[in-house]
């Protein structure tokens, strides 16, 4: 039995009288892509915000490589190697790729920015992900396309030995070719040994890239299945609540 990098058990979270997460279990494995799907309001974002340390859970256990951990701040999550790439990417357009990738964790010598060192690490990370769409690491983000920006955001998340990368709707705003590029990148990311959790509404993308699918329905994890054991129709059924998963969860 492989120990999951992240194992959530019985996670609960409520906002006032509203129970958003009602005892959710989730696993993510190194080198695998786990898709987190569910309709709007199912609790996907809340689950992810807890993992990122932005909104701590009310209860339940979080295990990281089998060890019980606390996730109460983004700093703790980041220290464990949990990185989130949000849908709006959060890049500063007035800065270049290197500056964005190192934002908040700049390399310095004698208190001044070590641009050469940062440039080298940024190039190596991008090359490690076989990125071929970026010509210069000193391009301003304002000059990049949506797919290139997504690439930069993903590269930033793996810059410092990320163990778990959570991608929130990485292909939502992209065209066909750029979606393809980003999905390739997600696959390479997992192949490099990272546990990837991808949130998506697009089941075509999910079936292309994911190894496991976890379906949230009204705050409950109704199914966690290997992609090869299920079909798109079944997953739509679990998402909408019109079908119930009978098998055992991964």
């Amino acid at each position, binding site marked *: 039995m492989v120990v999951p990098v992240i194992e959530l058990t019985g996670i609960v979270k409520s906002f006032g009288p509203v129970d958003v997460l009602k005892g959710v279990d989730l696993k993510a494995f190194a080198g695998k892509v786990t898709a987190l799907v569910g309709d709007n309001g199912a609790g996907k974002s809340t689950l992810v915000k807890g993992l990122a340390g932005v909104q701590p859970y009310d209860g339940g256990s979080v295990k990281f490589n089998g060890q019980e951990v606390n996730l109460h701040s983004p700093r703790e999550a*980041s220290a464990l190697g949990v990185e989130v790439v949000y849908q709006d990417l959060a890049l*500063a357009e007035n*800065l270049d790729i290197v500056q964005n990738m190192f934002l908040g964790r700049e390399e310095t010598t004698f208190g001044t*920015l070590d641009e*050469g060192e940062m440039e080298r690490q940024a190039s190596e990370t991008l090359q490690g992900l076989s990125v071929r769409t970026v010509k210069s690491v*000193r391009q301003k983000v304002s000059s990049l396309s949506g797919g290139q920006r997504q690439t930069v955001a993903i590269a930033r998340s793996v810059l410092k030995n990320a163990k778990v990368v959570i991608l929130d709707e990485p292909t939502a705003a992209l065209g066909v070719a750029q979606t*393809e590029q980003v999905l390739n990148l997600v696959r390479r990311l997992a192949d490099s040994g990272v546990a990837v959790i991808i949130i998506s509404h697009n089941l075509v993308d999910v079936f292309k890239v994911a190894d496991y699918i976890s379906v949230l329905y009204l705050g409950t994890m109704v199914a966690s299945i290997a992609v090869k054991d299920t079909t798109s129709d079944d997953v739509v059924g679990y998402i909408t609540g019109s079908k119930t998963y009978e098998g055992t969860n991964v």
Partner: protein
Amino acid sequence: MTTTPATPPPTIGSGHEGSIRDQITGYFRGVRQGEMGALPAIGGFLVLVILFSFLNSTFLTPLNMANLLTQAATLMMLAMALVFVILLGEIDLSAGVTSGVGASIFVVLVHNYQVNWIAAILIALLTGFTIGTFIGIFVAKVGIPSFVVTLGLFLGFQGLQLIIIGTGGAYRVETPEVSAIMNRNLPIPLGWAFLVIAIALAVGISLWDRARRTRAGVANRPLALMWARLGAITVAGVLFVGFLSLDRAVSRGSLNGVPIAHNAIEGVPIVVPIAVFILWTGTFILDRTRFGRHLYAVGGNPEAARRAGIKVGMIRIIAFMTCSTLAIVSGIFDASRIGVVSAATGSQIVLSGVAAAVVGGVSLFGGRGRLTHAAIGALVIAVIANGLGLLGLPAGANYLVTGGVLILAAAFDAISRKRGGGALTR
């Protein structure tokens, strides 16, 4: 799912590769794509200088040029102060009155309380620091738009200044050291010594940058390009100091073929090294420290900065502190030049400071601009006032032309940006 391509990905450049020719074409590509920086302001400055030197024979004399520098210094200082908050997309409408409050506190302390002038300046600077902290906390922690907070202070501080100075009063600046800032010059050898230090510093930092890049194993720009740049700085510096080392006193004619003796006016005005030092230090902090990088990031996308773990509120507070403190320096400059501090000192200058920053190419939306841009913008505005003054045009013309130049500069920037769409170079 497609598999990873078998061929290795091409190496990703950084814009530092290639020959001098590549570098130059890269630079012009950036300019065409809207990365104009201070180019329009520099162009405007040169056009105005050439224009005025044809229209008036006094304009290009060393005396007037030195005069222009001291005229520009107050505005330059204030515009540089404002850059720190404008880079965040914020504004400090109270910077002008803050400079006035600083000058008032200084002069009243020296005059009425016999405080040592250095202590008085330090107390004035500390006042600016406090004012900036106050604004910063109200903007960053309480969440009031900086426009509103500083508008309130703009109104309030005019009253504060009136109270400090006393109704209708005005104080002469009688501290020789402070009067000297704008009205006295460095001994000629000292002017050259400062130039040598500045050039040595520039060479040292350029070489250090190259060494660090080499150690990291990334491409460096051609060495020749570095020396060309430093050479250009040296030539400009030598011309500048040399020009200001000429005796610029107005000749008193001659009697029986012998020139009538006069006191020579020569050397770099004392304000110049002070302003250059603040410009250089500020630029160093903005370009080369984490604080500077974070300031630009907060100006570009505060949410991105927050998620990157940057303490956005703290950056805002420090920016306002810096702005108000430097505004006090501008107030001291003003007191030095005018020689009098009144209740109206500093009440008019703030919008000219904003105009100087914008003319120089600093974006009011935040995230884009440099201290040098503001300094050059201030020179443009000062040259308009100086030149039109020499032509004997009424003060109204000055305001009209300055306003026109501001709109022209903003339009130029907007159009070049729209046409370019984006930029490839840094």
